[in-house]
């Protein structure tokens, strides 16, 4: 028989000013159990987690932790009960060093009044070695790339005395080796009778690590069964209520005589070296590689943020100089950034404002006049075109789920109709349903002749959507694959090897 659960949620309800986020949700986690929580964007996963963490208070229902019942849980209560949370947005301190961030939870849990550098260094050193990654403990977190931030957030939660570690999409920004390492850690935690509640949109991870799976849909638990009861198709069906087939990209564009974009020997000191490739109209080209392989830097160079120092860029055969974002825009290059929340969105502004951010000048009439209504109509137009789930174009994008937020960023760029669109991690943190819809949007754009460059380490994503895939390592392109002729295992092996 199942042991008494460590954490037990009964009939939890939560409304956000009229929006029902959770409706009688039930969840229990036994000591040492590995439980996965899945569901579409906006199904209530993060809300449930925030309630357990004490940062959001539930309206109705019961929370029991280790036998204690809480009517109003505060963050410090949850922490004292042994719950550690890796939040979806990391909740790190950008101004502090890696070591200080990693030590923070432990120090707080130990209820220390005073701290020394040595103590911080020791805690961080231990966490880093447990994670098995190399990070400069003295680096400021704000200077780190997203993936390293995610690692810090994970390391911070791996306390000695934790009883349950909750991970809200901890792998969104990680590449394979780190993911594998994390899954190992989760199993090792189990050895020490520490339970894990794991949220992910990457179903292969879920299937790999979980013992129990809980599926949320529209704030209700629609399935709660052992891992063995699911296969991938059933899981997707439970989550979305429909069947989603992953088709490989079918249309291979005909090559015209000039490539849309061609790079020759593009280099930037310390970032990437001697990068050459062609992108043809209608083609979707994938660039993949591990953390620090120079993918993002290459994308930033194409967008003029960190211009290349050597080599040439040609657009439709014409050599162009891209020294600034302005140059990039003028030459028809668009860029969907990696970090949606800080680089992509104006969180407190409306959906319409976000969508129109790039096009305001074109939308404006004579004298640069731009009536708010025109912006709103523009937003509503894109809600329809990209099927964004939002009550209206005037809601702040903060209130949208990840997948829909990503569509808003896409709308902004599609509206500018660039010749080449560079997407850095286009579906990070997006649920499987939305993901395939976003892919369909990209496919559609390619069909209309746009050249699309996807920077991603999501192997299925590049494999299923790209005509060709370039593998980057240490700033160089080391190999090229044909999307149709490669399989996942081969690519994964090459990536890691």
């Amino acid at each position, binding site marked *: 028989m199942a042991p008494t659960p460590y954490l037990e949620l009964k009939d939890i309800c939560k409304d956000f000013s009229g929006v029902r986020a959770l409706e009688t949700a039930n969840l229990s986690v036994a000591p040492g159990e590995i439980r996965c929580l899945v569901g579409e964007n906006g199904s209530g996963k993060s809300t449930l987690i925030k309630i357990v963490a004490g940062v959001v208070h539930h309206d109705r229902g019961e929370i029991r932790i280790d036998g204690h019942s809480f009517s109003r849980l505060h963050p410090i209560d949850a922490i004292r009960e042994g719950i550690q949370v890796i939040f979806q947005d990391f909740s790190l301190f950008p101004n502090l060093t890696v070591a200080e961030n990693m030590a923070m939870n432990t120090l*707080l849990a130990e209820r220390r009044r*005073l701290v020394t550098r040595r103590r911080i260094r020791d805690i961080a050193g231990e966490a880093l070695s447990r994670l098995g990654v190399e990070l400069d403990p003295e680096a400021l977190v704000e200077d780190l790339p997203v993936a390293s931030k995610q690692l810090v957030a994970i390391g911070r939660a791996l306390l000695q005395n934790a009883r349950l570690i909750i991970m809200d999409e901890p792998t969104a920004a990680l590449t394979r080796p780190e993911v594998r390492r994390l899954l190992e850690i989760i199993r090792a935690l189990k050895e020490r009778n520490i339970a894990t509640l794991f949220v992910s949109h990457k179903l292969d991870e879920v299937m790999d690590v979980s013992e129990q799976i809980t599926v949320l849909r529209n704030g209700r638990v629609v399935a709660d069964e052992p891992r063995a009861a699911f296969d991938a198709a059933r899981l997707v069906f439970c989550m979305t209520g429909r069947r989603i087939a992953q088709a490989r990209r079918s249309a291979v564009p005909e090559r015209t005589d000039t490539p849309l974009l061609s790079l020759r020997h593009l280099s930037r000191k310390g970032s990437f070296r001697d990068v050459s490739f062609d992108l043809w109209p209608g083609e979707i080209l994938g660039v993949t590689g591990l953390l620090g392989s120079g993918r993002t830097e290459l994308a930033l160079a194409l967008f003029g943020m960190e211009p290349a120092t050597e080599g040439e860029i040609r657009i439709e055969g014409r050599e162009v100089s891209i020294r600034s974002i302005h140059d990039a825009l003028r030459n028809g290059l668009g860029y969907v950034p990696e970090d949606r929340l800080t680089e992509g969105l104006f969180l407190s502004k409306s959906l319409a404002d976000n969508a129109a951010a790039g096009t305001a000048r074109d939308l404006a009439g004579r004298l640069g006049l731009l009536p708010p209504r025109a912006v709103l109509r523009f937003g509503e137009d894109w809600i329809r075109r990209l099927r964004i789930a939002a009550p209206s174009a005037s809601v702040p994008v903060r209130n949208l789920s990840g997948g829909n937020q990503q569509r808003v960023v896409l709308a902004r760029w599609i509206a500018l109709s660039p010749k080449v669109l560079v997407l850095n991690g286009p579906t990070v943190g997006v649920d499987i349903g939305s993901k395939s819809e976003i892919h369909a949007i990209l496919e559609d754009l390619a069909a209309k002749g746009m050249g699309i460059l996807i920077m991603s380490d999501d192997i299925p994503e590049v494999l299923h959507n790209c005509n060709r895939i370039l593998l980057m390592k240490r700033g160089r392109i080391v190999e090229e694959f044909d999307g149709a002729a490669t399989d996942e295992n081969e690519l994964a092996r090459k990536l890691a090897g």
Partner: protein
Amino acid sequence: MPSRWNMLWKKNEFLVGLTILGLCLFVGSVNSAFWSLPNLFDLLRSSVVLGIFALGALVVIVSGGIDVSFTAVAVLSMYITTKLLLAWGYAGPFLWICLLSCSIGLCLGLVNALFISAFRLPTLIVTLGTMSAFRGFLLAFIGSNHISVLPQAMVAFSQWDLLRGRTPDGVLYSLPGAVLFLFGAALFTWALLRYSMLGRGIYALGGDAVAAERVGFSLSRIQFFIYGYVGVLAGLGGIIHTSLSRMANPFDLVGTEMNVLAAVVLGGARITGGHGSVPGTLLGVGLVVIMNNSLILLGVPSYWQRVAVGLLLLAGTAAPILLARTRKRPHAGEEERS
């Protein structure tokens, strides 16, 4: 691995230090009197009150807030203290005077904390409101007279020197004991920010308030501490200012808050929160004090002095930024607002 030298160039304290050194060399080359011991003592004395205020402002800025009310708190607490003591005919030691002023400052600081914590209002708004309200309250209801006959202990305090000397032409110079208060406050603040969990909490709050709450810091406790502490420092600065100038002038100090904030930001604290250090702040204070106390030595014509202060302030702010930029990767610091 970055070399030690490169690490140094990244440190704001180092860059501000270089800027100060440059300024000193310049002033010293124009007028060698700059390098004298009396001048050093004068600069230190001028730093005391500014420095104490700056330490408070630093703590607030690190926590991601801005406080513009501390000068009003300082004036209100020192004036009430002085009035009360005169009414009581107090003749005891300076310590109790200090404590009284600090306690009044504490109460006023807690008023700030109450609004900031209970209503979660932006700090600038709250302190702008309390600044106006405190000063208005003082002048409308407590008094607006200069008081130039102070309690004996305050006068004695202003005459307490650590070191004394006489120049060849027979001029006395001295290092006032008040600098000990600055050093003490600086040491305490430094240790607090660096070695206490409370201090770490202040940095955490400035880095990301939501995250700080999530890892289990009690935001309201931290905020009550911060604004209370600023109040205490303001009370301390106010009473020292009054004692050193041997006059309680209710029109004093208010209006200098921007200079204090400038000193703190010059010293490397980021106005957006999360960054800043006590050594950096002291350097920033030093820079401002040297700037303001060298114009006559430099022989700047009086009509040009304000222009000179403006240019020096801009140069002093720009220098560390530009120095840092020459050392950074080319793209960093590109037109990005901080």
